[in-house]
């Protein structure tokens, strides 16, 4: 049985803005019906990649195609088949929620009657029916994001791009968004999602591609990535004046990797293979040396952990580095 071509393909995309090299050769592919998360900090090149794939930006070199059409040769065909949601909700503030959706439907060349039914459907599904006839200016941040997502779904596109869909949302809105996105994923669309949160990528994506300084540095499922970074970490907070290096050396046998010392926060953080009972064991060992802990915590893996393991540096904001 022949498999269908990938819904999204990028080959060696490069893009520079003046002295800033946003993309240095990004390649990826997303099989039809699957979800890929592009994971990386600010400035890594996630948004630039999405902009190129959604025909908003042209690469300096490289090729890309979406839903079978080359983004440079046939941008119009690509646009007919995609929905896009950005970090900053792209809505008309002076129109109502309903008017925004209907207008976008019309601009997708949907017949007027269809835009009205579809808009009503989406407003209901995204719990915006009560606010549907109020102008978007009156909406909260969470409501705007939901409306923005609804707008990207008006034409039921086969391929969806979500650029940092939950960044900046409060925890409750983030949960709501995740529930909606999970439903979407279950429906069979192809999704490319960008995010700074490993948790989000883990929850929503089949596959994760880690982006750092304009390159994909790792690709795999969430489980594969987490096994690479050893999963959990233990964070020990020690009283002022404690020799942190000595503590790290002392406990080296308990750690499954190099510890990270933060003298300002007075913490020693290190990956651990098995966290059960570890806190008690460590506390006893330190106590035996006359060292008391201020606090101990088991941390779930974060983007920083992924980066520390893969690149040796933390996933700090990359914009200033790029500009140098």
């Amino acid at each position, binding site marked *: 049985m022949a498999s269908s071509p990938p819904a999204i393909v990028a080959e060696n995309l490069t893009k520079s803005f003046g002295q800033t090299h946003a993309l240095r050769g990004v390649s990826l592919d997303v099989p039809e019906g699957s979800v890929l998360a592009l994971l990386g900090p600010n400035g890594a090149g996630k948004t630039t990649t999405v902009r190129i794939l959604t025909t*908003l930006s042209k690469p300096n070199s490289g090729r890309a195609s979406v839903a079978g059409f080359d983004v440079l040769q046939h941008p119009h065909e690509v646009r007919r088949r995609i929905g896009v949601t950005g970090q900053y909700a*792209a809505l008309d503030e*002076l129109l109502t929620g309903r008017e925004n959706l209907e*207008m976008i439907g019309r601009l*997708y*060349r949907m017949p007027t009657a269809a835009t009205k039914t579809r808009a009503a459907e989406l407003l209901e599904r995204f719990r915006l029916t009560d606010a549907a006839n109020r102008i978007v200016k009156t909406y909260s941040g969470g409501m705007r994001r939901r409306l923005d997502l609804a707008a990207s779904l008006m034409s039921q596109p086969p391929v969806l791009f979500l650029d940092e869909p939950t960044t900046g949302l409060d925890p409750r809105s983030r949960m709501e968004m995740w529930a909606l996105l999970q439903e979407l994923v279950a429906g069979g669309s192809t999704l490319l999602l960008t995010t700074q949160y490993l948790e989000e990528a883990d929850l929503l994506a089949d596959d994760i591609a880690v982006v750092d300084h304009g390159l994909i540095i790792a690709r795999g499922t969430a489980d594969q990535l987490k096994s690479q970074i050893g999963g959990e970490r233990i964070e020990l907070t020690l009283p002022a004046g404690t020799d942190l290096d000595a503590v790290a050396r002392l406990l080296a046998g308990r750690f499954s990797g190099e510890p990270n010392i933060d003298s300002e926060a007075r913490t020693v953080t290190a990956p651990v293979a098995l966290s059960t009972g570890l806190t008690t064991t460590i506390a006893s060992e330190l106590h035996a040396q006359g060292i008391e802990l201020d606090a101990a915590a088991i941390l779930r893996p974060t983007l920083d952990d992924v980066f520390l393991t893969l690149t040796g540096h933390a996933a700090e904001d990359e914009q200033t580095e790029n500009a140098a």
Partner: protein
Amino acid sequence: MLSDSWDLVKRNLRHIMRTPELLLDVTVQPIMFVILFRYVFGGAIDVQGGSYVNYLMAGIFVQTITFSMMATGILLANDLQKGLIDRFRSLPMNASAILAARTLTDLLRAMLAVVIMIIVGLAVGFRPDGDVVHWAGAIGLMLLFGFAVAWIGVLTGMLVRTPEAAQGAMFIFVMPLTFASSAFVPTDTMPRVLRAFTEHQPLTLVINTVRAWILGNSAGSDAWQSLAWSLGILIVFFPLAIVIYRKRTTD
């Protein structure tokens, strides 16, 4: 292209209905000018036969249309600043529809302005003698000129960074053009050096033509020159605006 433009015109009209301040420049402002010039200055201006108010109205019509071109640029600059343009660009819609919709919406505003001005003029003593054909010609010329000049507004809106800058930039040339013309005073009352400019600039020619026609007179060569200027401006600025729009929205 047409259906895209129409959808966007509807959007623009909704904006105007929800932000009535956007209509100030085609309602309150021209009414103030009519009253100012008709009653405050009018008595001191000699127009060599004929009442001042009859002389004035053509100038008010054309001035209002020219000023409203500033709004085109400002509103477009405003749209460009926002994320909505990115959404439009990722949709399978015609890229230039947003420009067409802007200029068409503003043409509708200009028509509204003319209607209001006629009513106000009649209320302060304006008595036009032109027949229907001449009036049709005058309105046609005003709309053509307004449409052409709107593309200068579009271009300015795209060349500057913010709506405020758009307003400033256009004010600098729209103000002298409307005042150094035959809108409020006959150009032969101006010093010779200035006349070289005022007698030949497009606003004077359009105003003279409109004035002649609405009062039932012949406009002579001014009519042809007005037409030539209007078409000339359109032919230069329309494609230029589209090119700059493409450049500005591609990265």
